[in-house]
């Protein structure tokens, strides 16, 4: 380890170290966790609740749960995955399912049928330039699809972290992610066709 690396290590404790300090009633450690993760957790909550005020409530609940349960984090898996697990629970308590939202059982799971809907075999390239359209399409996906896309593709959790957050095995996570990506592409094409 170089002196510079030691300096960085000293300045930036890991999330797990901060959680241990929170468990020992170190208030500033919670503040540091908040500053590191509020934006990603808020985006995730907003994506899932589709409502800023509810997302802020869920964000507050998440960090209150960190305060309450920090001592139970044993360092198995990443601390970030654990934070997103707490956020999921907070969101589930706060969110209300939209009437008419497609449930996973209402749309096909067949990868090849999904691929055809997503544009496989189409001569024209898909367009993903319109951010508002992307937002609308993501909002129309099922909770399950939106959740896995938010965690992995939007927030950049690893497959291992997302699997741990969703209490899935990695193979199941990848299967869910793959279908969600194809359904997103299919919905983008459908939206383009509707325009």
């Amino acid at each position: 380890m170089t002196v510079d690396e030691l300096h960085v290590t000293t300045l930036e404790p890991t999330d797990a170290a901060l959680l241990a300090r929170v468990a020992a009633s170190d208030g500033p450690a919670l503040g540091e966790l908040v500053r590191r993760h509020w934006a990603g957790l808020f985006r995730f909550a907003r994506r899932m609740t589709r409502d800023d005020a509810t997302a802020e409530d869920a964000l507050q609940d998440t960090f209150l749960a960190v305060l309450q349960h920090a001592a139970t984090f044993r360092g198995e898996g990443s601390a970030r995955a654990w934070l997103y697990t707490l956020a999921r629970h907070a969101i589930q308590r706060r969110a209300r399912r939209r009437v008419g939202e497609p449930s996973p059982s209402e749309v096909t799971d067949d990868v090849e049928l999904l691929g055809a809907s997503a544009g496989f075999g189409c001569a024209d390239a898909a367009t993903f330039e319109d951010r508002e359209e992307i937002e609308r399409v993501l909002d129309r996906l099922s909770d399950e699809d939106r959740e896995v896309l938010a965690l992995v593709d939007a927030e950049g959790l690893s497959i291992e972290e997302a699997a741990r957050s969703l209490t899935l095995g990695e193979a199941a996570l990848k299967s869910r992610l793959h279908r969600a990506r194809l359904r997103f592409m299919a919905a983008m094409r459908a939206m383009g066709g509707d325009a």
Partner: protein
Amino acid sequence: MSSKANSLPGEREVGGLRCGEVLGGLTEYTSGGLDAETRARIEAHVRGCSQCERFGADFARAIRAIRASAEPPSADVLVRLEGRLAR
């Protein structure tokens, strides 16, 4: 890798893989979860199959578009959160 046949328009076999098998492996491919031999077979298929090349590019752009949709929220959210937690 396996998947049933005949669901994809214009499906063909290139490099020992069907298009459906390549389609089914795209997330595994992008997450680095495949062994070197399978990656090489997928890459060989894509080089020889314009449909999979085009769809693979769309797939990658879709992932980047979702990533790009994650804009920084307003800093006011942080201010309010810190205020609520301090109570």
